[in-house]
């Protein structure tokens, strides 16, 4: 009986800690916000390798990619998680937009089809996440319905959210607009490309992941 109780309590505790230690963190947001650039920055900082390819043409990430066992350290604290980089969520996809960027009609249609599938997968995966990092381009108006819908949905599911205003190295960046749009969330302004303000980002990640 005692050995059964010991096994039971150790199993319960180990499951509890495993859940906390192996968090699933998802990078979400509209296309071209810099999700993959941030994923690459995090992976470079802690694993010394990239996670995915980056492009100026929207919907470069069309499949969910997961990097396992990233361990972020800050002083004595450690945060271990699996990072999911997701395709940007949009309400419309027009293959002609890709053609305007110089792609062939065939490739544009394929890209559009893959992008729609990617968005469907991103939405399906929302439920699986323990923490979500919303990556917004701070040079673009944050009041888009996609942003509001994703964040509203996460709030309804009680999933902790960290909102990141990316591209603060650019002149047009207006972090204040993001802060005004989402006053109930902690907003961190970063430049994933230049590695600016990443310490503050990791600090906030520790806070929301508690």
């Amino acid at each position, binding site marked *: 009986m005692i050995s059964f109780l010991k096994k039971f309590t150790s199993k319960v505790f180990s499951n509890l800690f495993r859940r906390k230690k192996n968090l699933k963190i998802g990078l979400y947001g509209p296309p071209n916000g810099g999700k993959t650039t941030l994923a690459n920055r995090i992976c470079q900082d802690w694993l010394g390798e990239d996670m995915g390819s980056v492009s100026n043409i929207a919907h470069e990430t069309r499949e969910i990619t997961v990097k396992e066992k990233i361990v972020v350290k800050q002083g004595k604290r450690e945060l271990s998680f699996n990072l999911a980089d997701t395709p940007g*969520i*949009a*309400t*419309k*996809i*027009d*293959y002609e937009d890709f053609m305007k960027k110089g792609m062939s009609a065939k490739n544009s*249609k394929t890209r*559009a089809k893959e992008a*729609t*599938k990617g*968005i*469907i997968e991103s*939405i*399906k995966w*929302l439920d699986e996440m323990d923490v979500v990092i919303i990556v917004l381009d701070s040079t673009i*108006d944050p*009041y888009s*319905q*996609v942003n*509001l*819908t*994703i964040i*509203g*949905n996460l*709030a*309804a599911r009680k999933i902790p959210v960290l909102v990141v205003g990316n591209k603060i190295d650019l002149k047009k960046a207006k972090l204040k607009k993001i802060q005004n749009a989402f*006053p109930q969330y902690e907003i961190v302004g970063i430049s994933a490309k230049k590695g600016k303000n990443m310490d503050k980002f990791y600090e906030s990640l520790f806070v929301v992941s508690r």
Partner: protein
Amino acid sequence: MNLTLQFIPYSEIEGLSSIGRIRKILNIAKENKIVLLEGRLRKEEETELIKTTMEEINDEFKGIELAIIDNSSKNPDLLSRFKKGLANLLIGNRQGLTIIGPANIVKEIKKDPNKIELLANSGSLKKKKKKTTRRKKK
């Protein structure tokens, strides 16, 4: 340039399932009409609407533009939240307005707390008009 706006009172969707509500809205949007829905969908239905839209995108249907105007207070007190929650439970979320437009007609919806700007995609409308004229000639 013809723009058709179709108003859907909340009573028309309140008895429908989530799938039924999304289907109704999308079917109207796919007829190249702009939907003005009284109130708003549930949070999970809004996400499901995006997902279903993606499933139906093809060469003709390029997706939707979506905007929700909700005039309820951003920082309500506990009593207001309770009242709103109870009202939503009993009669549904009739507050505000949801605008859904097909992407080939509505280029962008710009939102402001007090006004809404709907930018029409005039090029696509002209193309559409031309197509219809040709069909008539046959």
